[in-house]
């Protein structure tokens, strides 16, 4: 198992820049998720780590050894593809044994390693089956088995759960994480699904337009996003961005919203711009009977354990998460304020979060 370090990694295809000077350190035994919308460069980054694409510039260190320009076959890394890429002309056993055949193992060693991997994934009863006869979940397990059978230094997974149905995906998330812990693997996992990322990752790197915006634990990514993009991308529904028409200065601890004043965490930095945003998650807002920001209920989404209210205000539509037994009617006038100190000011000039009492 290994540490993976990416230094100034850059990849362009002609005029199109897929990955922009990215830096990442993926620690040994870490479950690391690259998260981002499609086309953000996360798969290209993964493919460069695997050796399926060569970087335009930059380095990839695997256990401090520069492998950036080595062939895929020389890197001792395993890759799980979105479409599994199980060899259709081989049965399950041969699929699992395929990576071992290239290394000089005796037949009995190959058999025992295949059996071990198959048992770990509970597919030992399927060894003789044809790949085409397997159900989606079993194919997924065979693909994982083929990856872990030779105990590589790291596992790379490119949206491996993307083709499974929702119910099964949740189950596989759990299994994947458990498997990762059992074999002490270093795993790099690419997905565009924030729920997968949040539920499995030790750390998440959020990417957009070829850049790594933030790499942190799911909790920090969720609560203390460093940029407006990260804040918006993570969370369902996303963070509210309330426009503020004032320049924020260091040590400021309240802002004016319409005719009411709102307390914010004490700021450590000021903004360049006069048009900034207050970022606040729907669950950090609450309904109050007086002294709040006024608005009308525009929509109510019932989600079982909670309700999401969309409130029309002069500052735009704002989402508030409330208990599901809260009674509100469409067009009802309500007031709301902040529940706690978890607000973030985003500088309107560069969409970066300001350092504050909360953010630091």
């Amino acid at each position, binding site marked *: 198992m290994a540490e993976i370090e990416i230094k100034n990694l850059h990849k362009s295809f002609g005029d199109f820049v897929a990955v922009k000077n990215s830096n990442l350190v993926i620690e040994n035994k870490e479950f690391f998720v690259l998260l981002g919308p499609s086309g953000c460069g996360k798969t290209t980054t993964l493919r460069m780590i695997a050796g399926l694409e060569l970087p335009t510039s930059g380095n990839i260190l695997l256990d401090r050894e520069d492998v950036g320009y080595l062939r895929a076959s020389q890197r001792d890394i395993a890759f799980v593809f979105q479409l599994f*890429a199980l060899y259709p002309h081989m049965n399950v056993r041969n699929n699992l044994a395929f990576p071992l055949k290239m290394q000089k193992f005796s037949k009995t060693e190959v058999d025992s390693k295949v059996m071990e991997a198959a048992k770990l994934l509970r597919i030992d009863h399927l060894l003789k089956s044809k790949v085409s006869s397997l159900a989606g979940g079993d194919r997924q397990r065979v693909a994982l088995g083929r990856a872990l059978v030779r105990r590589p230094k790291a596992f790379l997974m490119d949206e491996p759960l993307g083709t499974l149905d929702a119910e099964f995906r949740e189950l596989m998330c759990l299994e994947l994480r458990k498997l990762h812990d059992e074999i002490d693997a270093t795993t790099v996992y690419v997905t565009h699904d924030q729920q997968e990322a949040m539920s499995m990752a030790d750390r998440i790197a959020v990417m957009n337009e070829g850049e790594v915006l933030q790499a942190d634990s799911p909790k920090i990514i969720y609560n203390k996003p460093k940029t407006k993009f990260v804040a918006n991308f993570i969370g369902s529904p996303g963070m509210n961005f309330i426009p503020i028409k004032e320049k924020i200065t260091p040590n400021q601890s309240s802002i004016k919203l319409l005719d009411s004043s709102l307390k914010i965490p004490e700021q450590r930095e000021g903004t360049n711009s006069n048009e900034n945003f207050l970022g606040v998650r729907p669950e950090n807002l609450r309904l109050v009977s007086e002294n709040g920001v006024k608005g009308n209920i525009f929509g109510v989404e019932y989600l079982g354990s909670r309700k999401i209210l969309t409130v029309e205000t002069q500052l735009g539509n704002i989402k508030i998460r409330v208990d599901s037994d809260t009674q509100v009617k469409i067009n009802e006038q309500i007031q709301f304020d902040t529940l706690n100190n978890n607000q973030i000011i985003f500088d309107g000039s560069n969409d970066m979060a300001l350092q504050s009492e909360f953010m630091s």
Partner: protein
Amino acid sequence: MMDTSRSPSEASGFSRKLAATIIIVYMVVTLIPISWMVATSFKSVDSAISYPPEVFFEPSLEGYVNLFTNRSRQPKDYLDSLPPPDTWYEELVRSREMVITGPSKFLPRYSNSLIIGFGATFFSVFLGSLAAYALSRFRVPLKDDLLFFILSTRMFPPIAVAVPIFIMYRKLGLGDTHVGMIILYTVVNLSLSVWLLKGFMDEIPREYEEAAMIDGYSRMQAFFKVVLPQATTGIAATAIFCMIFSWNEYAFAVLLTQFNAQTAPPFIPTIIGEGGLDWPAIGAGTTLFLIPVMIFTVVLRKHLLRGITFGAVRK
């Protein structure tokens, strides 16, 4: 009540019967020449040219005997002086007042056809699959122009370049050699092979060979162990087309081969009997000539049918 057991997109009973009738009529029409040819091969020389033609006749192996032997006509008293014939075919020839003077050239010509046909098919498919893979996977400069150029080699009938090839082969010493014919047929087939196989290679997801390369295999190993097995369908279909061309090719064979590497197609029409064409022998030659390509096609038929419709419907 309406019959709902059949899906609306399925053909009705009547149109199925109509289709079957049309197919059967068409099949009879196309099979008549072939069955006539096979029948002729089992006729005697006299019955083959009798008028009106005999549909029912006494079968004879004379055509096959004549095909495989050289004979010479002898006077009756010489024939009577010979010891009695050892074999049934000698007896048959004697009854026509002839003796067998040796084996004919049919067998060597036939084996030339096999060597050249299978050789050219192998190289067309092998080289074609390598080129198709490269064109399918790599960023080849001027790829589209290259593909068009490859196709353009088939835009005129190959025989149009017969004279330059004849001169070139004579200078290179390739005329009337197996190697020369294999190269020629390979070259003619290659454009078809590259185009057909490229289509099949495009359909094989890259992930398969990428998986193999990550699993420690070189690209070449991945190509042979993972890509080729999945292109079986395309390879079978391509092989059949190449085989049929090389096996049946007549014009170049007439022009470029004579003794050493002559194939069966130019040989068969030269089977001339005493005082006219020996139709049963020609029938026997063409019947035997059909067999390898028929076996080849039947063996690969399953792949061929899938191959032609492959890619029409996405899985």
